[in-house]
């Protein structure tokens, strides 16, 4: 420690210390350089993607014309969309139940809800693979028309997404002042009316945040999808995985950039909606 402090700067003003600023610079550099180069090189004309040769949208055009890639993308979005709807409804219901009731073994039930969050994804993936195989669901859905042939993946995604939604919605509900509910009933509203006119509007930011979270989780998932998808149903991450195994190409960069943009937008939206609200606390 220096023998003297700088005028006007206290001993705990670490934010002004040079070593910390350098460290921040280095770590953020390491964190972002790979991603930024990935995005930048999606606009590169060089096929092998090593040296910058010029700006182009060709890689995006190529990715767009790659029907397998597009199909995988459409599948991923479809899965994410359906998963989001089911997971949001299930998660919200569980959150409401946990918020409203006490019942025996509640702690155990909460741990049970948390299981899909804590167990390694690969274990969940292989368990579902085994389950779909043994019950014949793996074979059965292949014959179904799109998007029903994605059912297995959707089922799996809902199973790991809705506990997250439940957490998000529940943390929103904790801030609910129950006197609002009582006031509503006191003013003559029925239980059902109170639910739709008082509780649901209050839950809304949590619901939207939870839905966006489910959407991102589903869109991002590789491991569980990898095990539950059949040969005919490929999602975007699974497709990228098979391409990556064959090597680096600017087309993957282009497709990845699109996905990064989608998730970043969804994330920033979710964060905005989750930001603590000043009203509503009792």
């Amino acid at each position, binding site marked *: 420690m220096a023998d003297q*402090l700088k*005028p006007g700067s206290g001993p705990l003003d670490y934010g002004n210390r040079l070593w910390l600023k350098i460290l921040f610079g280095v770590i953020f550099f390491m964190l972002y350089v790979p991603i930024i180069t990935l995005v930048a090189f999606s606009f590169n004309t060089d096929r092998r993607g090593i040296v910058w040769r010029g700006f182009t949208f060709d890689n995006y055009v190529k990715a767009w014309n790659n029907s397998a890639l597009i199909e995988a993308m459409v599948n991923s979005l479809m899965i994410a969309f359906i998963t989001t709807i089911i997971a949001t409804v299930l998660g919200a219901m569980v959150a409401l139940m946990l918020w409203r009731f006490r019942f025996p073994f509640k702690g155990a039930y909460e741990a049970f809800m948390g299981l899909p969050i804590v167990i390694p994804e690969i274990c969940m993936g292989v368990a579902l693979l085994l389950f779909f195989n043994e019950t014949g669901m793996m074979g059965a859905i292949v014959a179904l028309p799109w998007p029903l042939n994605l059912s297995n993946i959707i089922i799996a995604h809902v199973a790991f997404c809705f506990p997250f939604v439940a957490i998000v919605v529940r943390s929103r509900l904790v801030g609910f002042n129950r006197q609002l509910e009582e006031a509503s009933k006191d003013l003559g509203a029925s239980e059902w009316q109170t639910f739709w006119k008082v509780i649901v509007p209050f839950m809304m930011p949590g619901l939207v945040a939870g839905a966006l979270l489910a959407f991102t989780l589903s869109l991002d998932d590789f491991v569980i999808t990898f095990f539950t998808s059949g040969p005919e149903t490929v999602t975007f991450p699974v497709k990228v995985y098979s391409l990556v195994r064959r090597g680096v190409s600017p087309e993957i960069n282009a497709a990845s950039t699109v996905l990064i943009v989608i998730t970043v937008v969804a994330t920033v939206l979710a964060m905005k909606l989750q930001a603590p609200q000043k009203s509503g606390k009792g």
Partner: protein
Amino acid sequence: MTDPIVSIRGVSKRFPGGVIAVDNIDIDIAQNEFFALLGPSGCGKTTLLRMISGLETPTEGQIIIAGQDMALTPPNKRPTNMVFQSYAVFPHMTVEDNVAYGLRVTGVPADETTRRTAEALEMVKLSHLAKRKPDQMSGGQRQRVALARALVKRPKVLLLDEPLSALDAKLRDDMRMELTRLQETVGITFIIVTHDQDEALSMASRIAVIDKGAVQQIAAPSELYEQPATRFVADFIGKVNLIDAKVLSRSGKSISCEAKGLGKLKFDTDKTCGDSVAVAVRPEKLKISKAEPKAAGLIKVQGKVRDVAYYGDTSHIVVSIKGGPDLQVNVQNDSRTGGSGVERGQAIWVSWMPDDSLVLTE
């Protein structure tokens, strides 16, 4: 004054963003003084204390402690120790370890550490709780730990940041006496920060009243009360009636002024003044009477009783006067049957000796 132990010279503290917390302050604090920094919250008194401890540094000025300018010395190299407002008793250590901490980290030998720790705990009467963890203790006990932890270091100056604010009323009185006793026993300089005038008046030997980052007055408690230098000090310490007045003429040490609702008055003052001054008089110095008081030289005014508040030992009577501010008069309820003997709406005379009032020029 002998050589001051702490000498604050031209100290200013500007925060980034331009807020001036402390504005060019000069204070000398003598050895063995019980010194209070008193002011409303946000006046800069805590910042000043933290600059003495080294937890913050001034943007300008010198802080001389025991003859050395320590304005930029880190806190761990200063002969000062602090009792924090939140006590900051380390929750992961026992009481004993908390008290011994400051000795251990500075390499005091183990046997001396043990002895001094035991002495310090004895001093704050906590020897029986030495092995406890802070979360099993009351607020008052934790504060004693904080005190022992600071005193065991034998600092030249002990700094106390709002030491009584987190205690309940009963404990606060005990602690106030305890602090005075401790200061007398250990014989080191105490500097206390408080926003509570009673605390400052009852404990400190001298008080600096601070407002908006600047010193308003430094004086002994009785002088602060009876001879406030500024309107702010008069108003901040105790209750005061302030009557605005316009200066009509000056001759030597005496001025003649027109006070609102009181008419023409003459005062002696040794301070220079502008055109507007204020006449200040404490409520307990005022007398009431139904008939016009006859004694010579009194300042007197007739008004109407607007409100009477009964406080047991005293009653506070608010009298509204024509063309002037309401005056508060505190009367002793010295007979069991009479009370204050006045009723709302009653016409009444208020009077006082000119010497009991003061002209405030700033």
